[in-house]
């Protein structure tokens, strides 16, 4: 019996999304094969990217291991973001936590100005995330889009309840959008379909939610793996978007990550490695050591 190397080739490809303007443009997606499969036919023009997260207010409940690397800049998002770049982040993810109605309920305008300052201060592309409150985000994210017009940000999360105003503003000001759905491939496709009717599909990044290791990671893993497979192998246009694995907060919220620094770094690192192998094109991390570790391991 002769051995024939089981090289595979696929008919579909993931859309390529550009984030950032001018010299700092970074592209994600664009591949027409599965993750980490350089041995198959086709190409992977853009390697997966790693971002570090920055909050627009000093976090109160982060374990010390994650605040220590940023201890001097935690109340200055601009300096914090610059430090992330120094640590080797391909992108920065600014989280407008202060706008959350259940905490500071900061006004949209102020948050938008912070986003603008951060975007202009760093030499890598910026991702801007709202607080996750769907009503407030519908107010905050369009302001961010407007204030940062021309910066080609990646803005989100847009969910089925609030995507319309966010999409409209991102469309007008040239940004890309994160379409978020709750751990379900069908709900994800449904949102992609609705969103792509009012927004260019090649500026959508999908976020099927990233559960942490031990807390449902296998669901995120399998949804990402299936998403990539249906897009690449079965040419389903509504799953052919790059995937973002926003796993920082979920990983560091676990008691296992909080209780021991090395274990925390591995908790975040293994979650990232797993989801990147499943097909995520972009991962958002918190600890600079896990960023470095994941980057060294998978590149």
């Amino acid at each position, binding site marked *: 019996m002769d051995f024939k190397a089981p090289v595979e080739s696929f008919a579909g490809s993931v859309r390529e999304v550009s984030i950032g303007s001018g010299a700092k443009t970074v592209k994600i997606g664009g591949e027409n094969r599965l993750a980490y499969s350089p041995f198959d036919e086709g190409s992977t023009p853009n390697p997966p990217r790693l971002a570090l997260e920055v909050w627009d207010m000093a976090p109160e409940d982060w374990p010390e291991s994650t605040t220590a690397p940023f201890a001097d800049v935690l109340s200055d998002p601009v300096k914090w973001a610059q430090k992330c770049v120094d640590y080797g982040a391909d992108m920065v993810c600014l989280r407008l936590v202060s706008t959350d109605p259940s905490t500071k309920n900061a006004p949209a305008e102020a948050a938008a100005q912070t986003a603008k300052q951060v975007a202009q201060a760093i030499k890598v592309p910026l991702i801007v995330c709202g607080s996750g409150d769907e009503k407030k985000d519908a107010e905050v994210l369009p302001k961010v889009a407007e204030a940062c017009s021309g910066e080609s940000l990646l803005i989100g999360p847009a969910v089925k309840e609030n995507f319309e105003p966010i999409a409209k503003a991102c469309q007008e000001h040239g940004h890309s959008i994160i379409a978020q759905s709750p751990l379900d491939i069908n709900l994800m496709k449904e949102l992609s379909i609705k969103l792509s009717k009012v927004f260019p599909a090649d500026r959508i990044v999908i976020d099927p939610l990233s559960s942490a290791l031990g807390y449902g990671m296998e669901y995120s893993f399998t949804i990402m793996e299936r998403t990539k497979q249906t897009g690449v192998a079965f040419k389903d246009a509504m799953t052919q978007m790059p995937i973002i694995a926003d796993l920082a907060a979920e990983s560091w919220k676990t008691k296992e990550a909080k209780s021991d620094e090395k274990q925390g770094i591995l908790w975040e690192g293994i979650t990232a*490695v797993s989801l990147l192998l499943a097909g995520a094109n972009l991962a958002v991390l918190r600890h600079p050591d896990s960023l470095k570790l994941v980057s060294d391991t998978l590149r």
Partner: protein
Amino acid sequence: MAVKGTDIVKKLPDLGKKNCKECGFPTCFAFAMKLASGGATLDKCPHLSPEVTEELEDALSPAIKLVTVGTGDNALQVGNEEVVFRHDKTYVHPTGIGLLISDTEDSAKVDEKIKKISDLQFDVVGINLKADLLALKCDSGKKDTFLALVDKVCKSTGVPFMLICEDADILLAARDICADRRPLLYPVTKNNIDKIIPAIKEKPGPLGVKADSLEELIPLTTRLKEEKIDEVVIDPGSKDLMEAINDQTFIRRAAIKQGFRPLGYPTIAFPGTLAKGELKEILVASALVIKFAAVLILTDFDEFGLRPLLMQRLNIYTDPRMPLSVEEKLYAVGEPGETSPVLITTNWALTYFIVSAEIESSKVSSWLLVKEAEGLGVLTAWAAGKFNGDSIAPFLKRSGVEDKTKTRKLVIPGKVARIKGELEDALPGWEIIVGPREATEITGFLPGYAAKLKN
């Protein structure tokens, strides 16, 4: 590549048209379909020639051979996998995680490692997570030194083990003092295979075959198969993680999709040779848990590395068709007392993890009732009739919560607010409080609620 019933039937008597019913099935075709799905065995048909029996046995055997290392309750089984992607069905035998002990390590280190393999165990929802085997390696090149280590490990632990030695004479001598424990012998290479074969025929046991590439493995496994030796794990000798992902993926695809027998064996890898550093080694191992490795040998590990690795293995090998569930009972989160809040949720492991983690982070000790609901989430369980007034009330009475607390207020998930009425009817004396819709809101809800309870 699973063999199809329609292919099997052609091999049965009279091209599958005999239909004598002696196998207990109405037709040859029905028997063939059962054979293909694993619901019948070949010996039920009395009319098969030995040649056809052998051919069908081979066709019906799993695409990836099942291999057992060790004996008894501790034995490690790997292989028998049927799919490339876990969502195609499920993975079956979790990656065996091993700890390396070199015969050049001092005795304190050896003792520490022997202790680690049995001490580092973690309980997760009633599942015990632990490493599976020890890998004893001859680095000294001295037979006596290596045999002394093997002897010591044999006497001090029942954990399965693997013997690693480049010198086949020393390897076989070590095997001879512990053959009854079925150690995995490694490496079998093109240089020593002639010496190994007769020794294995004499005392059968699992072998680890190593070559410098996937192609070079093929003549070795083929040769062993001709000698009727097929309890084998294979090592394609990958140089770095990316090469390992390539090799492991090709082996899995060749076995499953091409039905290529010479690579239809579980694999072994050594993350420590692919990356240096304690954290990086664990991360590389985690990548290989996903990328099909059946056995991984680590140079060392501690609690902070082993726990996340075993947790990841549990996640990846959980059957995606069967939600993981926890036992139905009353759980104490923190140190609840007689005025602490009482909450209820369903027994999907994920629901339980998240709800109990949120209660913990709210720092309010509480009683958490976890109701059996076939491992479904709250809303699905309600829709399936597993989480309603009639079924919750008897469980609450049974749980003993009424003896533990004076509280007669039960917090239900906000998503099933509609059961408040029926639950109050079914539980006289209890007031039903509609809690948060999402678990993440528990930290905001509990402190204020608990303060009110106390007043």
